[in-house]
């Protein structure tokens, strides 16, 4: 069996493990109670939820992201890179015939994501607060995801790097449900609860703030 085939099998198994592990976590999570808010809303709950997922994530929408605009945008771009990178990974068996110039464009985007991720890794070492807040899992999570993007970019530029790309991807996929990376599956819920809170109480968006 060739290394190439072995790496494909490995990444496929890792992907199955990740989907299963995340699915199980979500199933357990769904079984937890979700409190029903019986207080009569002052504002519009749906507007709040919509805001939480859209404009509420804009860098200018809150003080923290205005103060830390560069760090925030770095994080957003890194995460956009991750989602694009995952999509490319899943589609990779069918991307072999793609023209090289398309691969190069994707490669630059993914490489940028990798660079921003690795910058985040360095920032955790250098910034006092970040360093104090971080544990080994935090460092490893951002490192493994950054390496995943870097390996993918390498493969996009040089198709011969497929084995390396798949091996790093498999490692990242296996680690994802175990460590800090799993925060991704709770993100949507957290924003949902936040959106319901600010919406039903007419705190945000500002258009809801009416004395009537």
């Amino acid at each position, binding site marked *: 069996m060739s290394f190439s085939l072995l790496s494909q099998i490995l990444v496929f198994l890792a992907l199955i493990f990740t989907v299963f592990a995340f699915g199980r976590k979500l199933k357990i999570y769904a079984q937890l109670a979700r409190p*029903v808010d019986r207080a009569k809303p002052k504002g519009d709950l749906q507007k709040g939820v919509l805001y939480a997922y859209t404009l509420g994530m804009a860098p200018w929408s809150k003080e923290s992201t205005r103060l830390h605009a560069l760090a925030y945008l770095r994080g957003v771009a890194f995460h956009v890179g991750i989602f694009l990178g995952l999509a490319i990974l899943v589609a990779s068996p069918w991307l072999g015939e793609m023209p090289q110039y398309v691969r190069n464009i994707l490669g630059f985007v993914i490489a940028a994501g990798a660079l921003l991720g690795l910058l985040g890794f360095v920032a955790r070492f250098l910034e006092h607060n970040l360093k104090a807040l971080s544990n080994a899992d935090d460092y490893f999570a951002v490192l493994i995801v950054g390496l995943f993007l870097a390996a993918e970019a390498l493969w996009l530029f040089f198709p011969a790097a497929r084995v390396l790309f798949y091996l790093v991807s498999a490692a990242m996929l296996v680690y994802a449900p175990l460590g800090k990376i799993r925060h991704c599956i709770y993100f949507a819920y*957290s924003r949902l609860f936040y959106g319901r809170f600010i919406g039903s109480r007419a705190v945000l968006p500002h258009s809801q703030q009416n004395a009537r």
Partner: protein
Amino acid sequence: MTTTKIDIALNLLNQQLNQPLTAALEVCARCGICAEACHYYVAEPKVEHIPAARAESLRKVYRSEHDLLSRLFPSWTGAERLTEEKLAEWADIAFNKCTLCYRCTINCPMGLDTPLLMTSLRAIATATGNAPEVLEMLADAAIEKGKDPEIYLGFYKESIKDMEVELQELTGNPDASIPLQKQGAKKLYVALAGAHTILPVAAIFETVGEDWTLSIFEAANYGIFLGDASRAKAIARRIVDEAKSLGVEEIVISECGHAYYVMRWVAPNWFGDEFTFRVRSIVEVLAEYVQDGKLKLDPSANSEPITYHDSCNLGRKGGILAEPRVVLQAVTNDFRELTPNREEAYCCGGGAGLVALPEAYDLRMMAGKPKADQVKRSGAQVVVAACENCRLQLGDLSGYYGLGIGVTALTDLVVKAMRLPGNQKTVEHIMTLETANSGEHDNAEVWGSTDLVSLPSTKGDRSEPKSNV
């Protein structure tokens, strides 16, 4: 003994693990972007004052109990077993280092509900005997009084009669009254202890011809500070039962942030279908009166530069952001906003019961520094706060930082702008009482007096309240 406390804590943590709490425990990426959202951190930029760092104390234990990787390699994820020392640390964090202001949540890219985690810690601290005794005592006293209000009712009615004389002087109406236990009234007004939360509102209600009655209970709810749902529910139950028995259409809560928060947003989830009435803050009612033209107000009556402090419970956690400004625009020509304001406003530093803890004075003076700086920058001479807790804290901040400001309630400004016949004498007296709390003193005493049956008259000195607890 130690094992028992830890078992209680872990059991309670597990019982509380619902979807919102689990999401709050799992979603933090420890990006640290929440640091400046916290007034403690702004006042003292230390790692321990970063909301994520505070919450991490709970997360470490959560991970050691619920995460496979953390159980296998605890040092990898920073997981820690729960110890008695950690329980004490949790109590300190939850009661002294966080005022549940929700500002970190508004500023978190994840929308992470750190106050929910802190409330969970408060509940655990209370269940394991680590909660501040003052808060427990106040909560239990309120519950005890609610069991048999008849004991105090006679004295309470006498106090109200005295207050009616002042109301008649103020309004110039010899028939003006403060209705108590009026069956079928539209509004049940729930005040705090002290005539200063009753008389101005009575004057306003009298002027607009409102159909109202005064609650025999106080609005304050110390159970919510403890994170103790059973105590908080028992305290709220008194008011719910009173509203039901009188058949009122709505409960109007005095200018009190946490009391409004409990009755408006939390209590409906405890009582469900029993909640046949709506709940509003007096601030919302005032805004309605202003917009409907029911109050004739003279803005020149309040000539000093005035600013408004958004109480976290009313504003960021309650959506009462436009209403106070509608009222303020009508009662003064010199209204100045603090920066930042509304949902981005800083907590005063005394919220969530901190102002009632005598031992927390230095801490809350430190935590209130961002607010004091804001007030100083505004150039205002009067700060309006629609929350008793905030007013006490702002008065203390004024004394501590030499701000030289007056601190007042919104209703007081409204009454002043109404230019009632007895305005000059009575309203100035009320405002004197409002600002009497400036400087270092024992706010637990002020809070401890929050019993309507021991109402200090406006003729007395509110800084020396009497309590019959």
